């Protein structure tokens, strides 16, 4: 009998610990001036690490008196966690996966938001000799032929999916010692590529943000296959009724509105926001993203 | 006088080891009861059973007439206290250490204050209140342990080798404290391996060996009339001679025992002729006969000194008996040895004091 009491006591203590923790954190951790509403946005590393979302979300938060919780994930991970009901809205760049996500009934109201572009970067001495080529698939072919070291994200992200698309166009299945999947985010992949002086496919924004820290240059750009469109999707309210569908729709409306599109158009040209200090810094002189929801000439007149 | 403890057929086994076998004891209220035995004899086991820290495998313990099995251990334990062989104090001030027993009894502050003072006075540590007990010397720490154990005025104090880890000066301080505590009316049960300590302190002694009680009696009985060879050896009877009763004559009040190559004569004992016996004689009861003095003593034997070992104020001589295999041990004062010019290899005559010899039937 004594033994049973002891076990019960242990369980009670564990449960007490758990619930008091829950209570305490509810009381103390959540911000004291808790806004009325919260929006959970699952998105990719590129939108966060460039600081674009900081520029976009601040006016939105003020306008709707809400807070946007940004989950910085890979595209695959972002869609997956939304599928599990852990987000209200997703902002990603992987068209096929987005369509599947909507097709399976997890998301509704997909809208085009913007695009940035991919670039092929590599060492200054360019051992594969691809600099200035117009066609990305041809450049990949050359990298494969010369067996120059190529680092792949290998994480099923939007960038990785784009890379596979280019390999398919080139008619090559990349295998061999020269082809190295990393399994990490864009920044980490660029760092590894820089350390080993190899080639990789990157989005322009992440590269520009890191340019000052590395010795890699842009070798291929401008091929239409390298364009990288971002879509925004609300979580299907009939699947997850507790999620904040209304605010998700407001967010979609906002970033596709002239206000949101203008912020996207100008971001990076004149200023960027430092993700650490949240302070404005001088820009790169070129935009990082191009708005797609409103025709650019129309937008400029507004 | 009533019994403090009554122990019946007590038996304790730890796994395979039988630590205590079929023990029967009576400990009287107010006495100092010594438990004497070598280490591993079962002294600690017995004390732990008395303190109700462990449960016996078999048998019964009555405390003040109460069957300990049927009463609350905590309630009974609060009427006694034990001091362990390993000097143990808590990592706090001397005051808090001594007050501990009162605090767990929920006594009020003023009462605690008064009693702690008195207890520290008893052990001669007044003024030590604010010292951390862990920083004290071994002797001081043991005195704190005594204050801790007596502050709540227990009826019985159980002491497990209280001087085992102390130097001779602290040993006598502690022995003094034990006597003082006993004078306050507290029954003391003292486990020790030191025969001299048991002799000095105990009113009665039980000799424990290998989990069994060999003999219970007053110190004199234990030391001068050991009932078994173990007791004899343990209490310091160095000289043990095997023999066979030759003549037993009550009229002449004489017993003649044939040993190896010589005869020994002692006062009469009711033993049959032909009985095998063991003769015990303590080293201090063997006399060296001065060669210049004529003697009519019985039991004089010739021997050669083989070794001389200083033992404090005494010298311990080892002597090989002439025409015999027996070697005897003799303690004599240094000055006497000097006077007789005793040296290794010197031949001397010794005499075994008739009345100091103790005969055990073997």
């Amino acid at each position: 009998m004594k033994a049973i009491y002891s076990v019960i006591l242990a369980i009670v203590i564990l449960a007490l610990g758990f619930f008091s923790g829950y209570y305490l954190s509810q009381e103390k951790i959540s911000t004291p001036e808790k806004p009325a509403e919260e929006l959970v946005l699952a998105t990719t590393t590129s939108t966060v690490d460039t600081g674009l979302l900081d520029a976009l979300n601040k006016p939105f938060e003020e306008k709707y008196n809400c807070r946007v919780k940004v989950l910085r994930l890979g595209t695959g991970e972002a869609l997956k966690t939304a599928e599990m009901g852990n987000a209200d809205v997703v902002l990603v760049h992987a068209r096929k996966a987005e369509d599947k996500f909507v097709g399976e009934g997890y998301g509704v109201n997909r809208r085009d938001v913007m695009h940035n572009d991919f670039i092929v970067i590599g060492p200054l001495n360019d051992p594969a000799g691809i600099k200035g080529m117009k066609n990305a698939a041809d450049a990949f072919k050359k990298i494969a032929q010369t067996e120059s070291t190529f680092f792949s994200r290998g994480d099923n992200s939007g960038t990785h999916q784009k890379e596979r698309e280019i390999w398919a166009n080139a008619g090559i299945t990349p295998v061999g010692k020269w082809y190295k999947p990393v399994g990490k985010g864009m920044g980490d992949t660029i760092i590894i590529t820089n350390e080993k002086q190899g080639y990789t496919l990157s989005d322009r924004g992440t590269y520009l943000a890191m340019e000052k820290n590395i010795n890699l240059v842009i070798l291929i750009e401008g091929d239409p296959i390298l364009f990288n469109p971002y879509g925004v999707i609300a979580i299907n309210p009939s699947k997850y009724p507790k999620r904040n569908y209304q605010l998700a729709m407001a967010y979609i409306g906002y970033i596709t509105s002239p206000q949101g599109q203008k912020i996207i158009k100008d971001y990076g040209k004149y200023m960027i926001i430092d993700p650490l200090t949240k302070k404005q810094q001088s820009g790169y002189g070129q935009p990082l993203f191009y708005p797609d929801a409103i025709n650019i000439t129309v937008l400029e007149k507004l | 006088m009533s019994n403090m403890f009554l122990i019946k057929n007590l038996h304790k086994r730890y796994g395979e080891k039988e630590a205590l076998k079929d023990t029967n004891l009576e400990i009287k209220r107010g006495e100092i009861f010594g438990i004497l035995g070598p280490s591993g004899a079962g002294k600690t086991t017995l004390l732990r059973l008395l303190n109700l820290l462990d449960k016996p495998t078999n048998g019964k313990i009555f405390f003040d007439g109460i069957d300990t099995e049927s009463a609350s251990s905590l309630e009974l334990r609060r009427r006694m206290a034990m001091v362990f062989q390993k000097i143990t104090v808590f990592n706090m001030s001397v005051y808090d250490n001594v007050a501990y027993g009162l605090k767990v009894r929920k006594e009020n502050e003023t009462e605690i204050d008064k009693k702690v003072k008195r207890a520290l006075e008893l052990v001669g540590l007044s003024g030590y209140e604010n010292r951390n007990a862990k920083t004290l010397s071994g002797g001081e720490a043991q005195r704190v342990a005594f204050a801790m154990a007596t502050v709540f005025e227990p009826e019985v104090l159980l002491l497990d080798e209280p001087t085992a880890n102390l130097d001779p000066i602290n040993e006598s301080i502690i022995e003094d404290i034990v006597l003082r505590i006993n004078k306050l009316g507290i029954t003391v049960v003292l486990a020790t391996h030191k025969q001299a300590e048991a002799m000095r302190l105990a009113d009665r002694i039980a000799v424990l060996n290998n989990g069994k009680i060999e003999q219970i009696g007053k110190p004199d009985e234990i030391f001068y009339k050991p009932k078994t060879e173990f007791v004899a050896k343990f209490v310091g009877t160095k000289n043990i001679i095997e023999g066979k009763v030759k003549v037993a004559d009550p009229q002449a009040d004489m017993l003649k025992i044939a040993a190896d190559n010589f005869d020994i004569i002692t006062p009469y004992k009711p033993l049959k002729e032909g009985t095998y016996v063991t003769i015990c004689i303590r080293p201090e009861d063997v006399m060296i006969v001065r060669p210049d003095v004529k003697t009519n003593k019985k039991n004089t034997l010739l021997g050669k000194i083989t070794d001389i070992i200083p033992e404090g104020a005494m010298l311990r001589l080892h002597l090989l008996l002439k025409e015999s295999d027996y070697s005897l041990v003799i303690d004599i004062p240094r000055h006497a040895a000097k006077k007789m010019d005793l040296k290794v290899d010197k031949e001397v005559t010794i005499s075994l004091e008739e009345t100091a010899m103790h005969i055990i039937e073997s």
Partner: protein
Amino acid sequence: MSSLEFLFEGFAKAVELIFTLNPYVISVTQVQLKVSGIAVLLSTLTAIALATLISFRKFVGKGLLITIINTFMGLPPVIVGLVVFILLSTSGPLGFLNLIYTPTAMIITQYILATPIITGVAISAIGSVEKEIGDTALTLGASKLDMTWLVIKEAKLGIITAILAGFGRAIAEVGSILIVGGNIAFADGTSYTRTLTTAITIETAMGNFATAIALGIILISLALAANFAVNILQRRTED
């Protein structure tokens, strides 16, 4: 830039971030301390209760419990994070609690990680208290509860070490709290579930090694400060 230069620049940046009271860094540090602090506090309560139970009581399943604790001590944090994530996901069995991507989820994860370590070290601390201490308490009239409390007090130093070990594991954690917390900071720079450790992963990923090192230096300072505070506390209680 050479690796050493990163270190120097990181150190300079750490000083700058601290002395300019950078609000983002302060907010991130606050979340870190709150999450790890509450987690370790709860772990300590549970661990001392468990350690006491295991040290002083005999019960059915004790051996099993010890095995579980020992196993959990070496559990890879990412696995813990993943399991907590699946349980707390909105579509998961505990989804109704709405805890995914909250500080509470991080607290739960760190609690699960820290409790076995604190328990394990506390058990050995209690075990190293001489047997005579407990026996002396009993013989002086202590109840079992009094005796237990006294032995725990005697094991104080070891238990403090245990808590520090737990705190160390909690405060150094990255992978698992990244999964369950989501590494969220708002646009105005206030952290919700971003800690120094998870912020470091972002800075490293972006190649901002100097900033990452700066945050790391702050993190190490915190751990040192905790040890230092405990050290002073210990000395005070010993006098």
